[in-house]
């Protein structure tokens, strides 16, 4: 009665991995020329990390029962600060550090508004999303920043180069971030605090967990990782645009929820988010290569999201 087999504990991870494998098989059968070659995987590995990294941070936020809608603007701001500093100082290291600080500060401010002032996170961050996007527009006067020459710098190779000539560096960064986040979420006291805060903040408080500090930390971490993503995009593309981050809003949430993290808080999966991001990242190329028109992309996203979330809910009910 009290026993849950190993399969039961990891059912959702098995399921989502299975879905990814099935999708890859289907796409390979439909267009072997594309999916049996390396280039498409290099394309995936060089683009998925950009929204996967914010998705990892978002996983923690949602487990903590917070919602961060501000992140696309945080990405843009972090990227802008980095790009502006680099074009004016030429120092990659300095620009990266200050860019990361800027993103973290934006995240911290979001946390402050939510925790100390008490505005519900979804509302507060919708507001700050507009605010920071506006700030970025004003600062850049609507113009993109040209970062030609960034590809010749030494640090470029570290952030957006190709290991052994083939593996994109950002994929390694994303992988490393995922490992760290997994350790933090599953093995560290901070991850524990996030879980309890999201499960039941009253209970968490009574257990002596500093709920306020935990929530602010989650927002700050989001800001940091978003800035990291924005900076990596700049280095990869050799350019910064005022629209940076705009396309990621739905991709990030889709990755998190497909991965099995519950919208009710208290439970989540870093592994799931990684797989979810990969699934979302391969859909469009897969169906276009297969010959379906790009109009199908959103339909596919929708089906995948609703199916996987329904699956998780049914699973959760069964386990009760």
């Amino acid at each position: 009665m009290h026993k849950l087999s190993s399969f039961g504990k990891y059912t959702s991870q098995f399921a989502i991995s299975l879905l990814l494998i099935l999708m890859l098989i289907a796409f390979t059968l439909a267009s072997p020329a594309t999916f049996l070659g390396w280039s498409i995987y290099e394309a995936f590995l060089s683009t998925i990390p950009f929204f996967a990294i914010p998705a990892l941070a978002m996983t923690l936020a949602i487990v903590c029962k917070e919602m961060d809608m501000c992140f696309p603007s945080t990405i843009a701001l972090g990227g802008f600060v980095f790009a502006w500093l680099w074009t004016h100082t030429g120092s990659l290291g300095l620009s990266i550090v200050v860019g990361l600080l800027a993103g973290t500060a934006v995240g911290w401010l979001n946390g402050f508004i939510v925790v100390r002032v008490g505005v519900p996170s979804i509302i507060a961050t919708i507001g700050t999303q507009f605010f920071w996007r506006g700030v970025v527009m004003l600062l850049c006067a609507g113009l993109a920043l040209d970062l030609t020459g960034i590809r010749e710098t030494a640090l470029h190779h570290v952030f957006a180069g190709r290991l052994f000539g083939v593996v994109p560096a950002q994929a390694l960064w994303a992988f490393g971030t995922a490992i760290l986040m997994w350790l933090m979420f599953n093995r560290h006291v901070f991850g524990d605090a996030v879980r309890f805060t999201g499960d039941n903040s009253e209970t968490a408080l009574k257990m002596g967990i500093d709920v306020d500090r935990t929530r602010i930390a989650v927002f700050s971490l989001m800001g940091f990782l978003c800035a990291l993503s924005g900076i990596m995009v700049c280095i990869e593309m050799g350019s910064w645009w005022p629209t940076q981050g705009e396309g990621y809003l739905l991709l990030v949430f889709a990755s998190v929820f497909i991965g099995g993290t519950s919208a009710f808080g208290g439970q989540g999966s870093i592994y799931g988010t990684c797989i979810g991001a990969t699934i979302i990242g391969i859909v469009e190329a897969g169906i276009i290569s297969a010959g379906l028109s790009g109009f199908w992309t959103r339909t596919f996203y929708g089906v995948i999201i609703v199916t996987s979330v329904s699956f998780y809910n049914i699973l959760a009910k069964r386990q009760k």
Partner: protein
Amino acid sequence: MTPFLRLENISKSFGAVRSLHEVSFDLGSNEILGLIGDNGAGKSTLIKILSGVFPPDSGAFSFDGKKVNSRYYSCAQARKFGIETVHQDRSLAEKQSLWRNVFAGRHITNSLGFIRIDLEKAETLKILYDIIELTADGLDPDLPVSVLSGGERQGLAIGRAMYFQSRLVILDEPTTALSLRETEKVLGFIQKIKDAGKSCIFISHNIAQVFAVADRFLIMDRGMVVADILKKDTSLIGLTDRLLSVCQKEIPHA
């Protein structure tokens, strides 16, 4: 001999509502105190103050003779003093695993803050088997709390308190939603607290249950202590009568 816990003139109001008015009493170090009274008597407010949820407006309390500074007193502080509160339903986080619930807020960690999970899981099993004496085979500490029955959950919360050597376990209506058999279990746990040499404040509407396990009874009414009776000086019927007469009294005009 200094009492383990002493309350002196604790008062608390919420806006115009006076929740506690100059509550004073002592608690011994191996005493089970039954706290009874009608709804609105102030029992919840009192234990919230004791467990660090909020400070009193006036008055003070002390442990082992040392006065508590209410400005710095918090839930975490209360735990450090050895006070644990077990509620009907808010002591455990249902979705989280058993071992996390046991060690939340006081994990065994290494220097970087990483939890020693294997150790904690082993200790959790010990609590489940030794203290709560669960007999199911192959119990997995990774299971979420939601797989436990109501009585087992109370058991886990109490067992946790005992594991961490809490000196005072406050039980707030622990048996209200439970079946008879589960209730018996919980009363058994309370007896274990006494056997272990600790103190307990037991709040309940069920006089019979309170009478069965407590050594002393405190009756509260409208924010004040109106009776302080030792078990040996009364009977179940006597206590019940006393409580009824208190509840039916007129509100004294100020």
